[in-house]
Structures are given as C-alpha cells and as structure tokens.
C-alpha cells in the first residue's frame, strides 16, 4: 500500500542528526521495549503481518512519535487484534487474570535464545526461477492496498537481475497469514533510471525483490 512508511526518495526531510551518542539505548523504556520484542509474541503473528500493522499507524504518529514508542503501540495493536488483550486491558495496564509467572532466563540462556532467533526464510518450491542473473526486467507499475515490499520509487522501472537467492517466504502473502514461497532476486537499478537529477551512470541502487514484482523487459 502507498502509506507513509514508503519513504524512499521522498524529498524535504533532513538534515540527519549524525551527532547521536553511541550507546545502544538512549532511554530505559527503549531497552525494555527491545527486550519485550525479543520475548513476547502471539503464536499466529508473522513478521510481515507485524510490519503491515506498523504501516497502519496514523501517518502523523508514524512521522513524529519515537521509533520504539511505535513498536510499543504496534505490539499492543497486534495483541488486541489477536484477541490476547482488549483495549480496556491496555488502558488499565492489567488484564486481571495473572497466569503462572514465566521462568527467569539467565544471561547465558538469553544469549543461547538469541542465537536460536536466527531465522531462515528459504522455502523449497517446485517452480523453476523465471529469471537468471544478467536478465533485464521491468518492475510492476501498480500495487494493491495490501502489504508489499516493492517500494514506490522502484515501480515501473527497468533493472538487471544481479543474483537469485532461491525461494523465500513471500512477504505480501505472509502479511495476510499465508505462508508461500516465491523466487527472490537482488535487482540492480541504475540511479539514473530512478532519479531525474542523478547523473553518475556508475551509481546503483540494489533491491531484493520477489519474482511476482518483475516482468521480462
């Protein structure tokens, strides 16, 4: 969908705050939010549904509220959507139905759990890939109102297949709760084919795109 999250190439933002301190967390609540995200989910969510839900944050909030604040809102939204908590629970800060406390993990156990969070999105599918490296393609010009990972700035543009990565879980379907594999490619676009003001023909922008986003050029 063409929502506010699709920021690539939008003009008028900046400059970038490059003087930010190097510490991993700038506020205690950021650290708590990150830790909650590593541990607490509903079993039926997919990463793509979570991302799409975040895209539905009101545009004014998306552009102005702090990043991990939006994560908190989106975790709450996804829990409410899944029927795990209600809006009333969230407002009260309690669901009044305590379950057995969770087991406490040590640092060593957390580090092991962190290694286990390495997820492989590869899927084995019978279809042969439609493209091979070196092929020229053109991307789809239009999308639907659903989740997609084909950004606006790269739609209807010509590019070249750089690499094929097998088939991965297709984000657009996964955001709708359907797990299906689709071939995925790194696609090179020349900056001059994307931006009217670009002038250096060596400059490139590379995107990872699923096969259904692409047509032969």
């Amino acid at each position, binding site marked *: 969908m063409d929502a506010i999250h699709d920021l690539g190439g939008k003009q008028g933002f900046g400059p970038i705050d490059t003087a930010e301190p190097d510490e991993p967390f700038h506020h205690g609540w950021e650290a708590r939010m990150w830790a909650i995200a590593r541990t607490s989910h509903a079993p039926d969510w997919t990463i793509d549904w979570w991302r799409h839900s975040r895209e539905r944050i009101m545009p004014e909030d998306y552009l102005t509220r702090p990043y991990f604040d939006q994560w908190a809102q989106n975790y709450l939204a996804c829990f409410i959507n899944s029927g795990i908590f209600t809006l009333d629970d969230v407002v009260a800060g309690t669901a009044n139905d305590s379950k057995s406390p969770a087991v406490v993990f040590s640092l060593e156990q957390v580090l092991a759990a962190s290694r286990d969070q390495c997820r492989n999105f590869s899927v084995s599918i019978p279809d042969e890939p439609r493209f091979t490296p070196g092929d020229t393609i053109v991307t789809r010009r239009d999308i639907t109102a659903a989740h997609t990972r084909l950004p606006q700035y790269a739609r209807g543009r010509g590019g070249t297949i750089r690499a094929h990565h097998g088939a991965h879980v297709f984000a657009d379907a996964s955001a709708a709760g359907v797990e299906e594999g689709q071939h995925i490619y790194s696609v090179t676009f020349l900056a001059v084919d994307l931006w009217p003001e670009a002038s250096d023909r060596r400059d490139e922008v*590379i995107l990872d795109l699923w096969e259904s986003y692409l047509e032969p050029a």
Partner: protein
Amino acid sequence: MATFDSESAAHIHRELHSHLPSESALRVKALESLVVERGMVAPETLDAWIEAYSEEIGPKRGALVVARSWIDPEFRQRLLADATATITELGYQGSATGHLKAVENTPEIHNLVVCTLCSCYPFSILGMSPIWYKSAAYRSRAVREPRAVLSEFGVTLGPDVAVRVWDSTAELRYLVIPQRPAGTDGWEEEQLAALVTRNAMIGTDRDLMVAAV
C-alpha cells in the same frame, strides 16, 4: 487469532492514538505489565536481554569479523560467499542475520545500506541500530542522494568512486566490509577491530582512522 485485516489494524491504531498516554515510558510500561502478567516473560529475563544487547551483542562483533577478513583471505572468501554460515562459526548468528550478505568496499566502490520501507538491520552482528538509521531523513534520502547523505557524515567520495546503495526490502541483511587502512601492516586482529566503526559497517563512514587508536 490474528485477523490479518489491514483495516482492523488501522482501526486499533486510531483507538490507541486516542486512549494511550502520550509518554512513551508509560506506553511501554503498560505493555510490559500485560506480558508479564500473562506469563510470557519475567522482568528479570527482560533485564538479561538488555544486558545481552548492551554488553555482548553489538558492533564489536561486526568489527571482529571485518578485522579477520582483512588478515585471513580464506575467511574473507567464505564471508563473501555465505556470511550467515561464517558468523555462525563465531556464534554471532541471531536476530535478522539468517540471510546475511557481506559487501566489500573497494577503491572504486562505496557501499551504503538502508531500509526505506521500515528499519531492517542485522542486529545480531551490529547490535542496536542508531536512531538516525530509522529516521525519515535517512530512509528517504539514502537511496536518492547518497552523496549528500555521506557528506553529512563527513564522508566525501572522490570523483572515481561509484556508490552502491542496498535497500533491504526483503529478509537479506547487509554488512559493509570497509577497506583496511594503510599503515596497519602486521597489526593483530584485536588492534584492527578497534579501528572499525559501526557506521563503516553501515556505509556512512569510509576511511577508517588509524590515528584514532
């Protein structure tokens, strides 16, 4: 069960916009209270995760990988061929590095990594991403005017250097391998790793400073 209904998500966000306290700390506190109450996680486990990402999992991991790639050509080849398998040898696999790709800077090519659609980042090898990486300013401009973005970070590319911007639109994540600075012949891995900045591994830093050590 999740509805997977976009309009439902939008509706819930509008309700939360009206009903949540404005202060971020209070929002996160409400979320923590609920997940702890339901037995999804213990507060002490959250403390342990914060310690893990403050002390153990951070850019020093990526810096070690880069330093090793400078002194061990065979390691470098494996890293460029399959970065996930190679960091797994070191126990550095984890969040968002299941499809990690290492891309190398050369005298003619500068690599820059961005996620224009959200904020994808290889957490288990670089730790927490900086706020600027997640900002609208960086996400909008990195793909369109990378040289202007780089200049804000103090990086000026010579006329013979091309820019290659990687927009992380799927589950692949990118690690930039900066060039080894001159004057470091014979240095040990640890000394070399101390030269490697987080920004160099994202691509917003290029010429690593030997004098900084």
